[in-house]
């Protein structure tokens, strides 16, 4: 008789749900949820019992998250501010020299009645010359000229509802071919440049955010790694009496999420403090420019994104650490 018939190996029974449940693999869902809630709270309690270490980690995460959040807010404020300046876009129409002043006045009035134009002001050539003489200091040179070299100029300001860059461009193109107009100049170039500059800064902020997000992953990962090392014995015992990887992983994942969430809260506090500290001077500066501008704080979606993002980063960071370090610990 061969050995294999003496010791037959029974066929593997299929892992039916009922059997898994009997073995404790699939506990009652209510019990399961309750356990999750318990682990969630006990991992919070664990952070609470090591306040100094936990606060250090949270502070580092907070600073890392506060930087991109603060820059984002700065950009947001810059966008609002430049949005306010859109109203000051203006088009200068230089009329042909041969157009008589009466005709210039008629054109200015006609333009002023158009709905897409808020205001249309004529600067007669004589007035322009006086102004130039007063401001430039070239008075003597001008006197040498036989006649006024300046044309009549009509300054047009687009109506508030028609101040978007494309609409203003279209208006300028049309005005350029109006009879009597020699040349039209749009004083908007600097707004465009500002927008371009802000776009670059925005990209920069995104890069900084990604880098600091990685830093948060590393900080959380390292904290959880130390935590795993400190609880090595506990993990060994748990594995020895039949804890699954998921069971052992859970408290560490929740700790990571807590770190991230509190880091998000810390970042919010830091940014709010920075806003509060700069709010006064900014308002004074705005007053000097006769502006009602005030710094806006983080709105609800931003705060929510900060907190949820922080928690998710913490979760991911601890997931990475747990995946690398838990498997190495086996009872012996």
């Amino acid at each position: 008789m061969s050995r294999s018939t003496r010791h037959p190996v029974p066929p593997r029974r299929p892992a039916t749900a009922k059997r898994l449940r009997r073995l404790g693999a699939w506990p009652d869902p209510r019990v399961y949820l309750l356990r999750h809630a318990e682990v969630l709270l006990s991992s919070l309690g664990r952070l609470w019992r090591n306040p100094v270490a936990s606060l250090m980690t949270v502070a580092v995460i907070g600073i890392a998250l506060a930087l991109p959040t603060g820059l984002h807010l700065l950009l947001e404020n810059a966008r609002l501010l430049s949005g306010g300046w859109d109203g000051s876009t203006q088009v200068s129409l230089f009329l042909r020299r041969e157009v008589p002043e009466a005709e210039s006045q008629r054109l200015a009035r006609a333009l002023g009645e158009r709905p897409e134009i808020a205001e249309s002001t004529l600067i007669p050539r004589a007035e322009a010359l006086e102004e130039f003489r007063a401001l430039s200091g070239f008075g003597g040179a001008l006197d040498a000229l036989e006649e006024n070299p300046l044309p009549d100029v009509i300054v047009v300001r687009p109506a508030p509802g028609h101040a978007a860059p494309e609409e203003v461009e279209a208006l300028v193109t049309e005005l350029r071919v109006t009879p009597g107009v020699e040349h039209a100049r749009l004083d908007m170039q600097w707004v465009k440049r500002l927008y371009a500059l802000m776009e670059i800064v925005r990209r920069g902020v995104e890069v900084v955010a990604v880098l600091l997000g990685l830093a948060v992953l590393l900080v959380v990962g390292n904290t959880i790694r130390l935590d795993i090392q400190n609880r090595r014995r506990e993990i060994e015992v748990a594995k020895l009496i039949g804890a699954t990887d998921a069971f052992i992983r859970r408290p560490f994942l929740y700790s990571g999420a807590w770190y991230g969430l509190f880091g998000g809260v810390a970042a919010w506090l830091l940014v709010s403090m920075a806003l509060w500290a700069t709010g006064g001077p900014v308002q004074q500066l705005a007053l000097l420019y006769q502006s009602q501008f005030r710094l806006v704080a983080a709105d609800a979606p931003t705060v929510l994104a900060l907190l949820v993002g922080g928690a998710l980063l913490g979760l991911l960071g601890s997931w990475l650490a747990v995946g690398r370090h838990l498997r190495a610990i086996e009872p012996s």
Partner: protein
Amino acid sequence: MIRFDEVQKRYPGGHEALKGVTFAIDKGELVFLTGHSGAGKSTLLKLIALIERVSHGQVVVDGENLTRMRRARVPYLRRRLGIIFQDHHLLYDRTVFDNVALPLVISGVPHVEVGRRVRAALDKVGLLGKERLYPITLSGGEQQRVGIARAVVHKPVLLIADEPTGNLDPDLAREIMQLFLLFNQVGVTVLIATHALDLVRALGERVLHLEHGRLDELRVGGR
């Protein structure tokens, strides 16, 4: 319940701790495992709990072939075992109650039942009054009994113990052995590795004797 078939265990480094061990233990048996220091007793028990894996041959425990068992299924095997070590692997930052409750918490037993079963297990080992204490405040024998309570609280089908009486005085050792007999009487299969040969002789149960990694079965008396 347990079947070893030509089991060989070679540790990394080349030392052969078990050299072709074959035996079977039926459901409901109580068996002692004896042998000199370094004979391979701990190694044999570790193979049963899948703390180590065999190099050759096969091990079947409670109807499952451990040789082919995937890592993810190991926890479910261990939940059917009760494991007791000489250094009892207690968690010193948790109360006696929490230590004993651990196997139940791990397998998701509802709260009310946890309390009931932990107290029943502590009652069996005579530590009912000490559930709120921390293990560090207990004597060596008491700590060992906490370990035993934790090993039986989830009603395992198989209890394995590695020198459970190692550093206890003879009276305590006898007391602990009586506990194992008690569990055996309610149907638990028990396998105990021990040096306490006089105790083993006095009890007259089946004995597996290891000699340099080879098995040499002797039956001391009968029941």
